[in-house]
């Protein structure tokens, strides 16, 4: 029998909301806490587990159900929250020493909306410091491990959220995606992760890394579950001026018959990638073509500029966004006799090496005399890239590519080679630069048993269509989330 915590989210929430059904929010929360207690010592997906708060929230929800009150679509569903999102009253660390015990006074908009829909926050998940990285090894509080192979990374930067969902510790998690930080760990952990259209989900309460690229999005074991969380968190927010409204999807979900799937030459897994990943992409496409979809070969040469443009724009914005961590008002502080020394010592002690590297890169890219050659040029290519991608979507309905050119790599394997780490994002950054939505979904495993993900890209605003299509693709390929062996150790 399926454990209640492993049910589809819609069913789980419907049962909790039904006063005649014996399943209570408290049961789900206890199951989640039990699994965390059993497995997270090895995974280190969580930086902070809020057992007390979760139990209290579950009890309140159960009381409301008992009184016959209506509860939302996430009633009683345990939710893991990436620790760069504010949850009122819980420490917010961004996996950095720089925040030094900071506790935010308010919930991030996405957290407030999830709570209002009945979700119960069980804890805050690990990440690469300030979401900068692709392995969740750049955490000041220790790395997260991949549930499918504890010797490997879960991807990043939202590796804690991905590992938590993949290991069954929570059915849903929130992450943030600036250059692939939801999709790449979703792929490496064998689950679904969605990067929304820029402006679709509020960033209020998300600690900014690169504001023009950051989006908050859902992790789940299935696309249907991710869609429920996506619907809850999305929508204009008066506290984020970059949010806007998108029209609801028109009509029924896309049938595979006649669906035009763009195959972008520059997004193909090349010689530097893993052949098993390339094969998984080919198999997925073949399954879709067998059900009537058509492949449209495309070339978007500017796609090759994605990484260089991203690694100018993102560090530039980060150098400004992280200026507030100066030790003056909150966070880690190292006293000094002079102001400049106070800044230098506090920031030197607070930030890890990757964060420092990006601050220096970004400061350089914006400096007088260099801004034209780097920042402005990158922004101009970014504009052209956005147009090129819009042009591609004029000729197809979606793009299908790999999410990551390689499956989960060994812990420490790329830790000393920033450039190799940056190339983990080669297939994901373009969606952020262009602002378009993309969903990573499971596409089987390698012979070694490591998950492989493929990525569906859609035009602006097609988030819900993409998530629906991801469900259709799963039915066509028969490739769905499979629990890692480790998850079998606990009920």
């Amino acid at each position, binding site marked *: 029998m399926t454990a209640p915590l492993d049910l589809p989210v819609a069913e789980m929430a419907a049962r909790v909301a039904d006063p005649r059904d014996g399943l209570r929010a408290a049961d789900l929360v206890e199951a989640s806490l039990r699994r965390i207690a059993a497995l997270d010592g090895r995974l280190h997906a969580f930086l902070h587990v809020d057992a007390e708060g979760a139990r209290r929230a579950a009890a309140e929800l159960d009381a409301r159900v008992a009184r016959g009150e209506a509860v939302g679509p996430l009633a009683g569903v345990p939710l893991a929250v990436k620790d760069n*999102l*504010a949850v009122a009253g819980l420490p*917010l660390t*961004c996996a950095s020493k720089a*925040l030094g015990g*900071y506790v*935010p*006074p*308010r919930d*991030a908009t996405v957290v407030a909306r999830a709570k209002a829909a009945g979700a119960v926050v069980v804890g805050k998940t690990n990440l690469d410091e300030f979401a900068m990285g692709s392995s969740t090894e750049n955490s000041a509080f220790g790395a997260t491990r991949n549930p499918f192979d504890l010797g490997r990374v879960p991807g990043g930067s939202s590796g804690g959220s991905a590992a938590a969902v993949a290991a069954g510790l929570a059915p849903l998690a929130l992450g943030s995606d600036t250059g692939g930080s939801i999709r790449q760990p979703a792929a490496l952990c064998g689950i679904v992760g969605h990067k929304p259209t820029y402006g679709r989900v509020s*960033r*209020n*309460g*998300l*600690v*900014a890394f*690169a*504001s*023009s690229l950051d989006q908050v999005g859902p992790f789940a074991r299935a696309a249907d579950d991710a869609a429920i969380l996506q619907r809850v968190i999305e929508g204009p927010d*008066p*506290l*984020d*001026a*970059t949010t806007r409204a998108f029209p609801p999807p028109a009509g029924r979900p896309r049938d595979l018959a006649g669906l035009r799937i763009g195959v972008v030459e520059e997004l193909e897994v090349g010689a530097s990638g893993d052949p098993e990943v390339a094969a998984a992409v080919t198999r997925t496409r073949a399954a879709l073509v067998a059900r009537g979809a058509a492949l449209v070969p495309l070339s978007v040469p500017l796609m090759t500029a994605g990484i260089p443009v991203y690694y100018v724009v993102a560090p*530039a*914005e980060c*150098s*400004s966004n*992280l*200026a*507030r*961590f*100066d030790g*003056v*008002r*909150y966070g880690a502080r190292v006293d000094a006799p002079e*102001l400049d020394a106070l*800044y230098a010592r506090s920031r030197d002690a607070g930030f890890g090496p990757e964060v420092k590297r990006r601050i220096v890169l970004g*400061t350089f890219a*914006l*400096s*007088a005399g260099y*801004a034209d050659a780097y*920042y402005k040029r990158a*922004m101009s290519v970014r504009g052209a890239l956005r147009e090129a991608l819009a042009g591609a979507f004029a000729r197809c309905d979606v793009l299908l590519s790999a999410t990551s050119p390689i499956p989960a790599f060994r812990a420490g394997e790329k830790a000393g080679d920033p450039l190799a780490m940056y190339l983990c994002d080669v297939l994901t950054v373009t969606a952020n630069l262009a602002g378009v939505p993309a969903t990573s979904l499971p596409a089987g495993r390698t012979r070694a048993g490591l998950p492989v993900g493929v990525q569906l890209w859609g035009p602006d605003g097609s988030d819900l269509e993409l998530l629906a299509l991801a469900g259709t693709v799963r039915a066509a390929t028969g490739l769905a989330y499979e629990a890692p062996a480790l998850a079998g150790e606990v009920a």
Partner: protein
Amino acid sequence: MSAPAYRVIVGMEVHLQLKTRTKAFCACRAVYGDEPNVHLCPVCLGLPGALPTLNAEALRLGVRTGLALGCTVAARTKWDRKNYFYPDLPKGYQISQYDRPLCTDGALEIDADDGATKRVRIRRAHLEEDTGKSFHVTGTKHSRIDLNRCGTPLLEIVSEPDLASADEAARYLEELRKVVAYAGTSDGNMQEGNLRCEPNVNLVYPNGDRTPIVEVKNVNSVSNVARAIRFEVERQDLEYRAHGRTLANTPRSTRGFDDATGETVHQRTKESADDYRYFPEPDLPPLDVDRALVEAERATLPELPRARRTRYVAAYGLSAYDAGVLTADVRVATWYEQALVAGASPKGVANWLTGEVFARLNAENRGIEAVPFPPARLGELTALVEGKVVNAQAGKQVLRALWDSGEAPKDIVARLGLAQVSDPGAVRAACETAIAAEPAAAAAVRAGKPEAFGRLMGAAMKALKGKGDPAAVKATLTDLLR
């Protein structure tokens, strides 16, 4: 007189606090003078994850000020981050406007030193947020920071270097202060810091040499702006003569004005310090300025002080001085115009206002809003004097009564029996009484010594209880003494 050895060139950067109820990018109140650090929220504190959202009122007041300065308001504007570290700047950057300012290409007219009208060009006016305030307490190890001001909307108004002296710079600031008060967009008070200015000063010599540009900070009054510029002019001239440094071979620098000594002191050289790493603010989308908003603001702008001053001279026949006094404060000008009623000459009303009314207000150290009666009453009083219903002396009595009771002046005249006596018989009788009472004075006037005439006037007016028509009394006395 020999040709001047150099010309003075001054450009002015003004930071004007816009009079909004709340801050530029959050809902905190924008107020001066409260306890430190009470008007704060996650946004203006720069807490992690907090995002700015634009206060529409800040935009409206920015547009309105720009229009009052004759600027073009951009159809599309955008926001940029100006990055620098300072404890009173919680985010480590200031939201400002770099390459697409809200307003461009305006002008402000002032009186030039030669008396002609000078059009001082305004290059741009852009919106930005204010910083907090740092207090460096001498003798202690710590500085104190008050972030109440942080996020208050500012309009930075940058002039072209069209000002040619300290006096012109002072007049520019005075005029700007008046314009924003008329437009209702700022209090423009330099003491409270809601108008702050940084003059940029240098000199140009007949041989084409220019001294390095110096930006002067810490000037907190119009008179100090003038003092600082005068000091700078002399200092730069001495330095040029001593060292020959010019703009071409010396970087810009910043100097601070010291109120106690009247001198400017070197603060920093701009070359190394200023790299603000401007880039577009990703948290705020570019802004399409609503044309309807612009037109609504244009339509509701009042007549501005200089135009009003010119009109007072041309249409009302006021002296330039009186017109200047009446238009210096928009509340006074408004009060004055409300006092203009049928039967009273604008010049007469102006005299009563700037004479008797101002004297009383000055004595009480209060402003125009302290006048307890409606402006039209002063017009009615002026009309009674000009219509010879009362004489000027009795008019002052009426004004005193008016101040206390607010009654209609004509009712006061009736109640106090102040109506002027012009009846020839009564006037003649009074004059005869005066001549009889002052025989020595009468003899002196008859002997061709007109100095004694005043004594006779006084006696005649006394006989009429001060209510005599002075012109009739004078004519009758002259007649009787011929």
